């Protein structure tokens, strides 16, 4: 994924969720499914609810909020974004 790629919360997602003891349970408005997410995932979703953001900016949020090794940061960010996109929670903006 390119660092300049811009991500957004998919239109229609309202982020109904609860965080309990380091786990997040989130309702997916588009699929009707309920997901169990980690803290990193909900941090990214909340950031994208405020405004679309580049992959680089999202990686910075993860680095600031969680103790992620710099060498693994790109990989972890890509994995998280791919998983959230797979769940139809986020997508990329057209360039």
């Amino acid at each position, binding site marked *: 994924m390119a660092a300049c790629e811009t991500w957004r919360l998919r239109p229609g997602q309202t982020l*109904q969720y*609860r965080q309990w*003891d380091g786990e997040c*349970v989130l*309702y997916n408005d588009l699929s009707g499914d*309920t997901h*169990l997410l980690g803290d990193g995932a909900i941090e990214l979703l909340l950031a994208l609810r405020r405004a679309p953001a580049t992959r680089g900016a999202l990686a910075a949020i993860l680095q600031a909020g969680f103790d992620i090794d710099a060498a693994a940061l790109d990989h972890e960010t890509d994995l998280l974004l791919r998983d959230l996109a797979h769940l139809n929670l986020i997508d990329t903006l057209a360039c």
Partner: protein
Amino acid sequence: MLTVASLSRTQLEARLSSAGLLVQTGAFVSRIHSPLRQVADGIDTLYGDYPLHDGDAFADFHVGLRHPGGMRRWYKPQVNFDLDGQLPFEPLPQAHAFPMLEWGLNWCISTRAHAYLMIHAAVVERGGCAAILPAPPGSGKSTLCAALVNRGWRLLSDELALFRPADGVLVPVPRPVSLKNRSIDVIRDYVADAVFSVPVSNTTKGTVAHLKAPSASVARAHETARPAWIVFPRYEAGAATSLTPIPRASAFFRVADNAFNYSHMGGRGFQTLAAAIDGCASYDFRYSALDEAMAVFAALEPPR
């Protein structure tokens, strides 16, 4: 309001055989038609405390238990359950008519009452706080529920936890408690004055009998309760009694797994269940001795 007990046996049978018996169980009124002695026997034994409505009153469910036509009336007679004239199930032996009525009424609620978030769970209450016991068949849920409601807890339901989305409270639907196989004798021994329907053998669940709901629970069927504890019971012969806290996220998914209509309700179901999980302490509960189980429940502290 008059109760079913105000009818003589002759009057009860006449209503069942003609315009129907309109009986209120918590939030629901059912109009029951049946010419069968087994149905009249079960209602006569277990439904005396329930409010009775006039023949022209509104009913949520119009159900019948009747013979299929033809030769089966005479040879190994059977019974059909109908809702508004439709037959949702295969016929059963006539001797199974009363359990079929109970199962059918549960089915009516669980497939239609979508104003509520409905969970397959027993619900009992003490001091305004409700314990919800979600569990699959065979977990000892109904045995535990039957014991609790005869040791100071109020019965809201043996089968259906009905969460009202507007305020998150539990709406009672206190009906007879369904017990099967060895549990029937366990509760007969545990509850000195237990009133049971006639046990019916060779059902799909084995031998089944229904325990009369406590009169006080039926009289308070209009009183909602606040969810306070979610307890997943598990009977294991010889097991030591244990109550183990479980994380809220895990409790959320396990309750949802036992829901009849969580997916159907969409975001409203999520909000209703999430609010319940917020307000409850959740546990796994393993037991084998009812007295020890009663002591554990008596010691439950309302969550802050």
